[in-house]
């Protein structure tokens, strides 16, 4: 660990020199490549330091991103972090593609119904608690203070759906890091993925109702069409991509990593532009490939697994660098209260509703559901775009919550996997 600390220190010194040298130059060039390189290297060694301290590597990636990012030491300019949005999209798609290759029909048959049932319970209860709390906090939240009761109820419902969301990326990353395998891990991964499907549907419905409460009118057909397009359209596009991958793999047999990177970019960029879910597209593609051709699924898994370490390190370090620490100051108390209530609701629902046949689910599952990251960021940004009058305030609140969840979530997820006894090793090649 000492070596990692020295290396991390030297990297930070070099970044400080570059940052100082830039001040002497009249015009700055693009900082995106610098941000990518610096966050990748700092993330890797911070991950090692975190591991030495008994924390998940992911926590190290996030913390070092926060430290060298624009809101703390400022060695990496904001434009550099923003320029990594494409990388973030790519990372989410690659992670989802790998996760998809693990969604075999057998697994879905085994745990699908039980997971869906528990997920409905956890999401429902967490939604109700968050919804009630937000409505009760109306006087404390400036953006809700002037709203009518109907509007405040609608906005509370909208924000509560975002508060409920989980983080498949963090969960999958921690599972990869620890090489965890077993029924508990399968249950957890399936739950966060299905949970996000629930959240997508609920968010679309809540957004429609909120629009109506602000005088936009409620077009039920359009609303259902939008939800259906996002869900079934994503699965459909994922299936088309899966066929394209299989055809490529059978016909070309080379440059597979390059092709997969291109495809993941297509899923991330094209999906966002077509109002589809990039996560769902890649999940569906990965799942279909693995179920149609097991060997192809393994090849994809192996190809992306090799690239797992840089993808995770860069993705989470960039996420850390993008965390607006000042948001914690402005809406901190309310956000922390919501974080506490959400955690309590998840804990309570897991204790009461988890299947009785596996006592580990009742005791430890809640810890794996605390993290929030990419999906929540995306929904918060969508609120800003859809409701410009109050959306930016909601985004600040959500980002403050994400900051807290990103710092404690990975630690709790790892603790849950460790307590379940399914962690195999911390040193799997190519893991986070």
């Amino acid at each position: 660990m000492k070596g990692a600390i020295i290396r991390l220190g030297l990297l930070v010194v070099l970044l400080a020199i570059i940052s100082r040298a830039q001040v002497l130059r009249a015009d700055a060039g693009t900082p995106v490549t610098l941000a990518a390189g610096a966050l990748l290297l700092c993330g890797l060694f911070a991950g090692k330091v975190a591991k030495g301290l008994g924390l998940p590597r992911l926590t190290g990636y996030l913390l070092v991103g926060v430290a060298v990012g624009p809101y703390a030491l400022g060695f990496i300019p904001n434009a550099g972090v923003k320029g990594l949005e494409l990388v973030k999209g790519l990372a989410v798609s690659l992670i989802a593609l790998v996760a998809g290759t693990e969604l075999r029909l057998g697994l879905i048959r085994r745990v699908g119904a039980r997971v869906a049932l528990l997920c409905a319970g956890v999401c429902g209860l967490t939604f109700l608690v968050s919804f009630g709390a937000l409505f009760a906090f109306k006087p404390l939240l400036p953006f809700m203070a002037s709203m009518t009761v109907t509007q405040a109820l609608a906005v509370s419902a909208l924000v509560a759906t975002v508060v409920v969301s989980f983080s498949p990326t963090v969960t999958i990353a921690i599972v990869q890091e620890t090489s965890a395998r077993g029924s508990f891990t399968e249950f957890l991964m399936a739950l966060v993925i299905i949970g996000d499907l629930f959240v997508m549907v609920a968010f679309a419905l809540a957004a429609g109702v909120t629009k109506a409460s602000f005088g936009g009118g409620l077009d039920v057909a359009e609303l259902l069409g939008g939800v259906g397009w996002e869900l079934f359209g994503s699965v459909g596009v994922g299936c088309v991509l899966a066929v394209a991958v299989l055809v490529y793999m059978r016909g070309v047999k080379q440059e597979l990593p390059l092709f997969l990177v291109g495809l993941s970019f297509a899923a991330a960029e094209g999906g966002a532009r077509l109002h589809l879910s990039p996560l769902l597209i890649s999940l569906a593609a990965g799942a279909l490939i693995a179920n149609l051709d097991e060997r192809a699924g393994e090849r994809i898994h192996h190809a992306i697994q090799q690239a797992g370490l840089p993808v995770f390190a860069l993705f989470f370090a960039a996420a850390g660098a993008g965390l607006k620490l000042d948001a914690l100051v402005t809406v901190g108390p309310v956000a922390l209260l919501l974080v506490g209530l959400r955690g309590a609701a998840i804990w309570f629902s897991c204790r009461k509703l988890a299947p009785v046949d596996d006592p580990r689910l009742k005791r430890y599952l809640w810890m794996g559901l605390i993290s929030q990251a990419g999906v929540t960021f995306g929904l918060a940004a969508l609120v800003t775009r859809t409701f410009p009058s109050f959306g930016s305030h909601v985004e600040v609140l959500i980002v403050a919550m994400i900051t807290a969840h990103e710092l404690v979530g990975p630690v709790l997820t790892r603790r849950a996997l460790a307590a379940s006894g399914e962690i195999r090793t911390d040193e799997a090649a190519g893991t986070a």
Partner: protein
Amino acid sequence: MQALLVLLSIAALSLLASSRGLDPGRFPALARLAASGFLFLLMGILLGPSVVGLLTPGNLESLRPMMALGLGIAGVILGLNLEPRLLRLLPRPVYSAALAHAGTAFFFVALPLVAPLLLTSGLSPQAAVGAAALLGAAASLSSGHFAVLAYRAGRMDRARGLGVALLTMLDDAVGMGVLALALVLGAASNLGEGLGLVCLAVLLGVLCGALLAFLTHSLKDPAELTTVTLGGVALVAGAAAYLRVSALLAGVACGATLALVGGRTAERVSRALARVERPAFLVLVFLVGCAVHARDWSAWALVPGFVGLRFLGKVLGGKLAQRLAGSTLELPPRLGYALIAQGGLALCLVAEYGMLVPGGLSQRVLDVVVVGAVVNELLAGQAFRQVLGPAQAPARAQPDVEVAT
């Protein structure tokens, strides 16, 4: 969206280049361009702002980080090849031969073309000399990929193939030296500042190279080594791009420092980088192609002169090189014909010049060299048959893949 377009185009071209439909027997020139990566260059020209316009100048501007990364990777790979132990072992005639073929082509192109550049651009003599020097530098570079493919396929004696490859590797130093000179002349408002920026690039590269050597020193896990290598290359290229100095020169300095102080780590880094060399090269040439102004007729007018003068320079320079190193290095007859392929480094030089030296002259240099490189790649296939002789000339073009650096 633009990055998506770039990657989709490259994936599509990978598919085309690897498909059975691209039969070297039926489409030898196209297959050769695909194998050397120059098909991506043509695709870039086609999709770029000046032809179809799928990528706008604004898109290209936002893709600069990818360009900088590509240049950084090329520079580090080049620097890693400068292994001091091997360079010291080479006899002096080998250096003289490399300098002869590169220098002859340089002067054959740079001197005659300085006048048209000066007359058509209306810029200062200093800028025109810088641009002509860069044309000469691009002309002086050769790629040894034909010789490498020929000896791998058993169509050429291994020693001769390696001799050609060695000479083409050494001429890279001429190219890099002239790039530094051209940047001193053109990248800043005065010579002192230009020199300072070149020194800053080199210093940055040395710092990053030393740090990379330290970071990778005790890493045993291949995944970690690859990650640190990629991160280090991105750091040096990114820092150079951020400070608006040459990513290519910084990369070379980084690679050379790593080769000097890294010991066995340098070999492992080199192997790790080799995995991303071809994808990075393909993205880079695609982006260079996008940057071409296909409607600059003055540039088109210069292309025949550039190609013709370079051809003459290489043929005569080859003879001179053979005379100088014939006794110490096994070289094929008609060496000059083996040096016609221009390779990817010439594209890196002009891309870097275009990024750092504002104005129309750097754009014209890029246009001339890019079109010239494609023509030279096509000419090189025919010219290389002269080196092999009728008995050894292949009936069909080989479908091998080799990065044309």
